[in-house]
């Protein structure tokens, strides 16, 4: 199959790639990789790996699975782990590292990240865990960053109704009420995700945490220094509830959100008549827009704003996927090296729905302006925080927190839910 | 306690496979009629039509003068005893016997009285609380009969009720049924069997079924002594009646027949002058043969002898297709391999047209 872009063409950073290609020969070797990207995303990442194959002569076998989190544990235990695992959550990676299933990366990788990645230091910290003996090491390198603090809307709908893009959380809430008054359901919300049902709600809560409290509180929350049922957390949950637990605000009613698949939720923006006015979702959601979605035409986004009165600046929530070595091999090491090349990022950037922290990336390679704008949002952010649920232990961040949010949306009290989650957390220690 | 009338009854399974036709039969109250016939001739089918378990394809069935073709089994006032007993395996003997009455919503006392009476009659009292599987074959059969009795039906139907019992039990139960019939002289019973002895001993009349129809109806001895067709003649009695070909040479009160194999038979069957020269089949039952010094009806070499103690069966070397068998009282093992001449009392020599009907009618 042909490469996406012939080597040497376009605004891509070919030089470092060519150097890499010259110095690396892995002919006959196979690099196995597993991760969570399936479907379109798998197709895109496969394009990236193809350049690695082209450069090294190795074969890359990437498999994406919806139940990656389980599979990786099982295969690590049974001794048949792939060379590289791409973790969607640092939390699980930390778990695995502590059990000795991950191989530390060369310290040079850390140095590289610090120098070449936006917010490099924090990205190194997020990938540095205690190993089985307790020693701290860098175990992963971030590759793709998702920007979460985005609200998607249909400009045509806004135009017809005469709505304006809100500048602050206060305005957003006002807009929500207006829409409801006008007979337009303000929000599309889908929490369904198979076994991971509930996670989109955790993003909301995290956004609220960042907008209600200082980043320190957020960090304490992540590390359980303040308990999960702390009033500050409960407040954030309830702030989310202001939106999500009002039947008039949610397409299909608040309860429907719990069973609507998050991949299904954008469609309401595009229907005629529109089923909802806005969708708060991370940057990757564009992958689930219908075919006729056209940026700037019938879809656009704005920054999920902060409370004006709180004066906490413009916090931004993000997430990222982390490449780790689960079964060391020459190829695996080279793959990590490959990720240091801007090209590895540019290729996906060029296919859309991708943001990279790599500062060497040529912005021209972004497929759309949107991506460029999003990367600007990141630049403008006064606070950047990583998705909390991804940082929490997987039993919480990929378990109790999710189900707790579903319970909350479908009727439970915020305080009760928070207490339950904290109870589960207590058991871990 | 009823009479039954079948007129022109026909049965065709699936509309095409004709099993019975033109069945005309009247059964009076108090009779015990036995159906016999070769396997597959439709005995069970006829019985089941009377029971209502099979639809009657054509013709009518009357019970007590009422046409009951379309009356469901339960309303016909019949009771049936099956070959396999068909006891309800999950019910005790008592429950088996009272099931029909309970269904009919009879009062408790009434049920108890009826069951107790039947149990007494059949000596089933000690077993009333057992399950069928804890009973012997004969006891099970008695329960099946008891189940019929409690319903006090107009007609009892028995379909080979004894064929699953072993020889000794069969004899005993047969006698019990005979006694039962005697205790209920008014009840009408229809009994299907394979067993000749049962048929002969129990029946007030035997119905021989063959070729989709009734071959002959009559009291047992009449069938034995005056079979109307060769079929009936050979069907009733064991071993079967010997059939030997011959030609009438003298007619009158007594008839003389010249046998095809050289012998000569004299029969008490009267013939008319015009019958002379006609070809007939001479039928002699094995037990009616006796050794003779004079002109024999049959003479042949004994191939096999079977000494049963009481009697000895002589199997003659086959001269034609049909085997000839003689039955002599006592032990005669010495006859084996010898030439023996047999004749019979003229009164016991039957004559049949080659066209099958008994001549003398």
């Amino acid at each position, binding site marked *: 199959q042909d490469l996406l872009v012939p080597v040497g063409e376009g605004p891509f950073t070919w030089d470092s790639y060519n150097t890499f290609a010259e110095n690396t020969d892995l002919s006959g070797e196979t690099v196995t990789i597993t991760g969570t990207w399936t479907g379109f995303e798998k197709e895109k990442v496969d394009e990236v790996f193809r350049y690695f194959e082209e450069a090294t002569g190795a074969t890359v076998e990437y498999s994406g699975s919806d139940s990656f989190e389980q599979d990786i*544990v099982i295969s690590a235990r049974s001794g048949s782990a792939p060379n590289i695992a791409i973790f969607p959550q640092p939390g699980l990676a930390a778990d695995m590292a502590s059990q000795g299933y991950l191989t530390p990366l060369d310290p040079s990788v850390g140095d590289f990240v610090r120098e070449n990645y936006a917010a490099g230091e924090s990205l190194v910290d997020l990938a540095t865990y205690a190993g089985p003996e307790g020693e701290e090491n860098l175990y992963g390198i971030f590759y793709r960053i998702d920007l979460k603090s985005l609200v998607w809307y249909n400009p045509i709908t806004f135009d017809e109704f005469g709505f304006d893009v809100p500048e602050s959380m206060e305005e957003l809430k006002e807009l929500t009420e207006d829409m409801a008054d006008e007979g337009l359901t303000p929000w599309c919300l889908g929490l369904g995700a198979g076994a991971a049902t509930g996670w989109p709600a955790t993003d909301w809560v995290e956004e609220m945490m960042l907008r209600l409290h200082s980043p320190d509180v957020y960090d304490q929350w992540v590390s359980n220094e303040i308990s999960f049922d702390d009033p500050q957390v409960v407040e954030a949950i309830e702030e989310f509830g202001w939106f999500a637990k009002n039947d008039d605000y949610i397409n299909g009613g608040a309860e*429907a959100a719990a*069973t609507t698949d998050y991949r299904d939720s954008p469609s309401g923006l595009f229907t005629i008549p529109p089923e909802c006015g806005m969708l708060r979702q991370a940057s990757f959601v564009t992958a689930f827009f219908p075919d006729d979605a056209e940026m700037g035409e019938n879809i656009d986004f704005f920054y999920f704003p902060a409370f004006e009165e709180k004066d906490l600046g413009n916090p931004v929530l993000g997430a990222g996927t982390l490449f780790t070595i689960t079964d060391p091999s020459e190829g695996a090491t080279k793959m990590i090296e490959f990720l240091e090349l801007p090209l590895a990022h540019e290729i996906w950037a060029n296919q859309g729905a991708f943001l990279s922290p790599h500062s060497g990336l040529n912005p021209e390679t972004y497929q759309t302006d949107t991506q460029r704008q999003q990367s600007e949002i990141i630049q403008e952010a006064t606070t950047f925080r990583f998705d909390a649920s991804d940082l929490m232990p997987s039993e919480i961040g990929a378990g109790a927190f999710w189900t707790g949010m*579903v319970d909350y949306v*479908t009727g439970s009290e915020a305080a009760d839910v928070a207490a339950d989650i904290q109870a589960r957390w207590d058991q871990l220690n | 306690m009823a009479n039954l009338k079948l007129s022109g009854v026909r049965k065709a399974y699936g509309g095409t496979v004709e099993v019975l036709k033109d069945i005309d039969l009247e059964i009076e109250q108090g009779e015990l009629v036995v159906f016999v016939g070769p396997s597959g001739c439709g005995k069970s089918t006829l019985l089941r039509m009377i029971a209502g378990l099979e639809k009657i394809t054509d013709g009518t069935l009357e019970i007590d003068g009422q046409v009951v073709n379309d009356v469901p089994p339960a309303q016909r006032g*019949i009771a*049936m005893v099956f070959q396999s007993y068909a006891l309800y*395996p*999950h019910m005790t003997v008592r429950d088996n016997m009272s099931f029909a009455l309970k269904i009919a919503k009879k009062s408790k006392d009434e049920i108890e009285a009826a069951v107790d009476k039947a149990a007494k009659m059949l000596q089933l009292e000690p077993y009333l609380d057992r399950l069928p599987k804890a009973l012997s074959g004969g006891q099970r059969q008695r329960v099946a009969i008891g189940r019929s009795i409690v319903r006090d039906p107009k007609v009892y139907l028995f379909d080979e009720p004894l064929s699953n019992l072993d020889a000794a039990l069969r004899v005993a139960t047969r006698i019990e049924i005979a006694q039962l019939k005697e205790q209920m002289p008014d009840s009408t019973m229809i009994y299907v069997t394979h067993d000749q002895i049962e048929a002969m001993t129990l029946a007030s009349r035997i119905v021989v079924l063959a070729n989709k129809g009734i071959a002959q109806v009559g009291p047992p001895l009449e069938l034995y002594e005056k079979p109307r067709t060769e079929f009936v003649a050979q069907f009733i009695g064991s071993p079967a009646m010997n059939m030997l070909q011959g030609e009438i040479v003298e007619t009158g009160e007594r008839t003389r027949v010249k046998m095809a194999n050289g012998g000569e038979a004299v029969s008490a069957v009267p013939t008319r002058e015009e019958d002379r020269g006609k070809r007939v089949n001479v039928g002699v039952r094995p037990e009616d043969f006796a050794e003779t010094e004079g002109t024999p009806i049959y003479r042949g070499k004994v191939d096999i002898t079977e000494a049963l103690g009481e009697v000895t069966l002589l199997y003659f070397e086959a001269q034609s297709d049909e085997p000839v068998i003689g039955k002599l009282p006592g032990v005669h093992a010495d006859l084996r391999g010898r030439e023996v001449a047999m004749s019979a009392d003229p009164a016991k020599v039957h004559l049949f047209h080659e066209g099958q009907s008994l001549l003398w009618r």
Partner: protein
Amino acid sequence: MSPILTGLVTIAIAVAGCAGYFYASNWVLDRVIFPPRTDDRGRNIARANLVRPWLFILPAMLFLSVYLIYPVVGSFWRSLFNRSGAEFVGLGNYTEMFAEEGFRVALFNNILWVIFVPAAATFFGLLVAQLTDRLRWGNLAKSMIFMPMAISFVGASLIWKFVYANDPDIGIINALRDFVGLEPVDVLQVAFWNNFFIMFIMVWMQTGFAMVILSAALRGIPEETIEAAIIDGANPFQIFFKIKVPQITGTILVVWTTITILVLKVFDIVYAMTGGNFDTEILPSYMMDYMFRDDGRATAVAFVIMVIVTPVMVWNIVQARREMR
């Protein structure tokens, strides 16, 4: 090598290897260890026959011991340790678990499942078996009803997601509600009853199984007992309940047991339908939440499941022993 060829070769090796064991071991026994030579062939054959049952049964018993007995024992042992397996906690996992609301919900739901699913599947199976017994198109009907048996639990869940979908344009239940002018509801969120909606999927799948076995049993009832009942004046309902059903109670119980056992193993349906949310968790799916995360807890759950099955198991053993007499 093409994948098809690899597949075929592996299949062939696997199957041949297995059959080969039996053939070879018998050959060795008969020809090498105890050859039937003329002088003492009687004794040698007799001796070979003493060994042979063990040859026959050995592989099966190996499988059973390694894959079922060892795990049962091993799991119990594991359930006495903490999540990492390093620390002995005695019954700690159990006490902690029972203290937890989520577990109690799962336990309660599981008991609902164990009661409802086998009962309903057996009931429907019996009903269909009886109704189709004399039907000209009975076999066709049975095939239709058996069909869900061939569908995986994941596939079945998918099918029912359709039926239960919130959108009246997708879900037929809400379409019907819509038709009579009712608001659409998310049936998977109707507290308590949602359990039954999920259970019905299992019923839908297992009815075919019950039906096949029960209709075979119904066929096995002696015709004469039914005819006798007809003559005795019983109506069709009385015949069914008083004559037929009592005669097949044994089979009904076997079907019931089999489905009960299955119910205690299936997690996929809950997993796919609700992911255990909305208070629909059952023990197997609850266990899956912990599996490979907290093995101590997971094995403890497995053991609770074992305990629930134990009466059924004992009953089966007793039954088998009785049959052997």
